[in-house]
């Protein structure tokens, strides 16, 4: 082939590469989702726990009011000090620019709005407990009301003329009760008592923040400063909320991306400059890495419209793998009489095989219905394809044989033990570790949280029980009214569970929107009081004139108006409205949120006995899914190993094939044992790492076994450099604060090291023969 033709073919390929890069960048810019490209919410990682769209919708709806909310409890020895501290805290938080809205005061205006809007419907609106009392002991009830009117509490408590029996007031107290029933209001600040102190409640809605490349997100800075302030003022302070968790995750991920990426790059730079005595390969490696990370990033943006933080952290490790392809090409350029075409011919078969096995391994991961696994798989495969293409298309133009670098020497292990001895040794040493493996299929363990934050979350959960957006009762019926009636029939059952301690409390839509049937019942109760003359007697005792009594009695005798769902929803508080999911034709649904139900076994039993009621525990469902997928993936891994054995036995012969397969198989055993010994998290996410060990282990063994005799020294050099950088990059993950990432590193570091050493052992053995 004439040199000119080669050159123009190379240039054509390079141009193709450039066009592809431009196309990918353009497509990514078009598909760019804006500030929301980085997801930090744990729920983005969760697979759909099943149960259909309605459950997912309910969970989203219940969580929406709390998405940006942080809750701060500031405690002092007495309620007044706590209230003052609450105001001071709110001032401090307002002075920062990270919050959109800071509330220390109870929003009485919102309550008054509801009170005014529902007033016309008051005759049908009676709190369930009161209605029961009114039905069973009307005389005693009226006696109590009368006594109250003679006390100063009655004098200050609402209008006697607008609500003579205080029934409407009682309904509103129940309907608008906050999550903490025990909260008192001091100087307009809600205060709860517990753990020997009084705590003011301050809520602050964080501004929606994109991922900022800062060492410390502003919210974390504010959090720290505020904790220090509380310490100085000798106040107790607890804070929690999704934005704090996200900010913390962003901060630790930022540090890890910098560290892992930085150290891998430094190691690669040292290796390349040291070996090739020229900065040129390093510059080329940077292009390959850039293409790898950029390609992965673009792939995730195009496929998912953004990515999760965990994907990005894993993505940083693509650096370690993507540069491997370049290493094989660089190493080959050290051969005497090297030309770009000959080099490509030399390494291309091995490169194809390497990309093929890795791509298959990672793409099989994408089959699992786990959003996080899918994203990582797509990110990695796209990154690998991009850097592979860069090596094949662009590098022939760029790489020149180095002038001064020493030629590689043939250095198989001279004292390598024979494989027949290595196998039992590895198995015996690994067995106890494998027996120690303890799967923990819990999605909550995946995230790193500082101790302070999770301890505070527990304290706040105890003082201010909050309903959980992931655990609730979903009630469905074929009409809105049937749904409300079903919820009302559930109430006594739930109250029974509260009495037995299986439940601390619950909030249902019917707290503020009784069914039509219930409203008519309530109206009947009032009419009974009127007909028996008790109502008139009560008013007369208080000094009402006959005209006033008659007017009120007539209003009660007149049926309606009744409160319709649309009217109630119009004025409902945000957190209440979130519980009503509305109707899709004849499928109406609403959630009953609960506190203190634990894992909800009692509620699950209750729901099983009822029509149209379902206990939803998304966390449990997700964990169950993780368990299933872990078992499934482990099975798939074994199957993959069998298939590879079969294929290699056919192509390389049984003896050689088995020797190649022994490398990844033993490496997997070492990985599992290391996880077991170290006590690292073992879940479906480790399986991802094991797939990488499998793919990379086969690569290393194949490169040794397939290298032609003339190419052995450069093959060994390429494998060595690839292995060192990959091990370094993944090994650093061990130090991650995020348990799942650290476990990933703990699986890869020993697995890849074992794969490399075992490949050396079998390679040397093969070459000696």
């Amino acid at each position: 082939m004439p040199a000119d033709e080669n050159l123009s073919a190379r240039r054509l390929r390079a141009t193709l590469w450039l066009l592809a890069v431009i196309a990918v960048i353009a497509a990514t810019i078009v598909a760019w989702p804006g500030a929301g490209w980085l997801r930090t919410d744990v729920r983005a990682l969760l697979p759909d726990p099943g149960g259909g769209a309605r459950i997912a919708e309910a969970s989203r709806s219940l969580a929406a009011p709390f998405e940006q909310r942080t809750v701060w409890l500031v405690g002092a020895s007495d309620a007044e000090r706590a209230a003052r501290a609450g105001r001071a805290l709110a001032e401090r938080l307002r002075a920062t620019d990270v919050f959109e809205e800071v509330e220390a005061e109870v929003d009485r205006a919102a309550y008054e709005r509801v009170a005014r809007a529902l007033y016309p419907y008051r005759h049908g609106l009676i709190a369930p407990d009161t209605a029961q009392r009114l039905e069973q002991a009307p005389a005693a009830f009226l006696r109590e009301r009368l006594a109250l009117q003679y006390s100063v509490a009655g004098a200050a408590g609402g209008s006697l003329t607008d609500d003579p029996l205080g029934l409407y007031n009682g309904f509103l107290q129940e309907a608008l009760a906050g999550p903490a029933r025990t909260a008192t209001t001091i100087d307009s600040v809600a205060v709860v008592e517990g753990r020997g102190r009084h705590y003011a409640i301050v809520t602050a809605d964080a501004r929606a923040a994109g991922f900022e490349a800062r060492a410390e997100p502003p919210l974390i800075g504010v959090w720290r400063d505020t904790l220090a302030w509380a310490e100085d003022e000798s106040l107790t302070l607890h804070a929690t909320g999704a934005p704090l968790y996200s900010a913390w995750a962003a901060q630790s991920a930022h540090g890890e991306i910098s560290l892992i990426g930085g150290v891998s790059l430094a190691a690669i730079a040292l290796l390349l400059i040291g070996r090739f005595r020229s900065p040129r390969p390093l510059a080329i490696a940077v292009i390959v890495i850039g293409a790898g990370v950029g390609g992965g990033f673009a792939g995730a943006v195009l496929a998912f419209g953004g990515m999760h933080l965990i994907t990005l952290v894993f993505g940083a490790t693509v650096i370690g793998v993507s540069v491997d392809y370049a290493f094989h090409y660089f190493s080959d350029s050290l051969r005497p009489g090297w030309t770009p075409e000959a080099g490509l011919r030399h390494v291309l078969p091995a490169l194809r095989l390497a990309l093929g096995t890795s791509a298959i391994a990672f793409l099989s991961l994408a089959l699992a219905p786990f959003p996080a696994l899918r994203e990582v798989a797509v990110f990695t495969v796209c990154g690998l394809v991009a850097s592979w293409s860069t090596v094949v298309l662009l590098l022939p133009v760029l790489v020149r044989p180095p002038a001064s670098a020493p030629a590689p020497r043939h250095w198989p292990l001279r004292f390598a033990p024979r494989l027949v001895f290595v196998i039992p040794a590895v198995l015996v040493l690994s067995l106890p570790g494998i027996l120690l493996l303890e799967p923990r299929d819990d999605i909550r363990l995946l995230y790193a949280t500082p101790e302070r934050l999770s301890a505070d979350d527990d304290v706040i959960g105890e003082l201010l029980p909050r309903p959980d957006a992931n655990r609730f009762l979903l009630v469905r019926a074929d009409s809105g009214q049937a749904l409300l009636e079903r919820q009302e029939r559930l109430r006594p059952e739930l109250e029974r569970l509260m009495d037995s301690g299986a439940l601390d409390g619950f909030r249902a839509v019917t707290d503020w929107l009784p069914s039509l049937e219930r409203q008519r019942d309530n109206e009947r109760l009032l009419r009974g009081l009127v007909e028996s003359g008790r109502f008139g007697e009560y008013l007369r005792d208080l000094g009402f004139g006959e005209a006033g009594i008659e007017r009120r009695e007539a209003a009660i005798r007149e049926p309606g108006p009744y409160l319709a769902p649309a009217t109630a929803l119009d004025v409902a508080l945000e957190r209440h409205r979130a519980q009503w999911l509305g109707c899709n034709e004849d499928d109406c649904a609403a959630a009953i949120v609960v506190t203190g139900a634990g894992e909800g076994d009692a509620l699950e039993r209750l729901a099983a006995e009822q029509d149209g009621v379902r206990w939803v525990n998304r966390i449990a469902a997700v964990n169950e899914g993780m368990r299933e997928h872990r078992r499934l993936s482990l099975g798939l891994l074994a199957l993959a190993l069998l298939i590879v054995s079969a294929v290699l036995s056919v192509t390389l012969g049984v003896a050689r094939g088995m020797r190649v397969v022994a490398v990844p198989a033993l490496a997997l055993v070492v990985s599992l044992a290391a996880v077991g010994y170290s006590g690292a998290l073992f879940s479906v996410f480790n399986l991802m790492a094991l797939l990488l060990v499998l793919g990379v282990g086969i690569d290393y063994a194949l490169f040794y076994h397939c290298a032609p005799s003339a190419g052995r020294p450069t093959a060994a050099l390429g494998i060595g450099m690839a292995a060192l950088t990959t091990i370094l990059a993944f090994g650093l993950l061990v130090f991650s604060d995020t348990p799942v990432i650290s476990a990933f590193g703990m699986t890869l570091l020993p697995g890849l090291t074992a794969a490399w050493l075992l490949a050396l052992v079998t390679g040397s053995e093969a070459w000696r023969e």
Partner: protein
Amino acid sequence: MRGAILIALLLLCAPPVAIGDTGELPELVQHETAVGRFVQRRQLPELERPIVSRGRFVYSAGRGLLWLIEEPVESRLVIDAEGVHQDGKPVRGGGAFAAIRPLFESLFSGDLGPLERDFSVTREDAGERWRLELSPRDGQLARALDRITIEGVDTPLRLVIAASDGGRTELEFTDVTHPERLDEALIQAFDRAR
């Protein structure tokens, strides 16, 4: 020694800190206890005659305020740090309800601090007699309450709550004494009302 100086400094600084920047808060004689009789007259525009009740009241700095209503019905009401309870049942309410706890706390302790948060307070003196005018600071409270007037000599003798809906509640206190210790029976009455 340094600790003692610090405590002394804190003590010296304490009063201005407690009063805040208003600086002109009127002072009443402060008492640990107060026991007496009350008559409550409640008038509403629509009612033909006032709702009248009578009884005794007991204030103790540690325990709160107990109303023992004797006529026309027998009932016990206690207002303390835990809230308001009548005959063993918690009472919650709208309107000016939230303000009654600080109001009565200040009324008998003589410490107007808690009151100062919800109301702006002015004082008039006529010889021995003094008169406090309380106007709600907060818009929400102002919607339920127009004004509260307290008159007294040494201890309060009369309290008038003028509500925004035209209602008016008048409390008169008589036979007020400040015993060193409360009777055991009265202490038990606190617990029964809660």
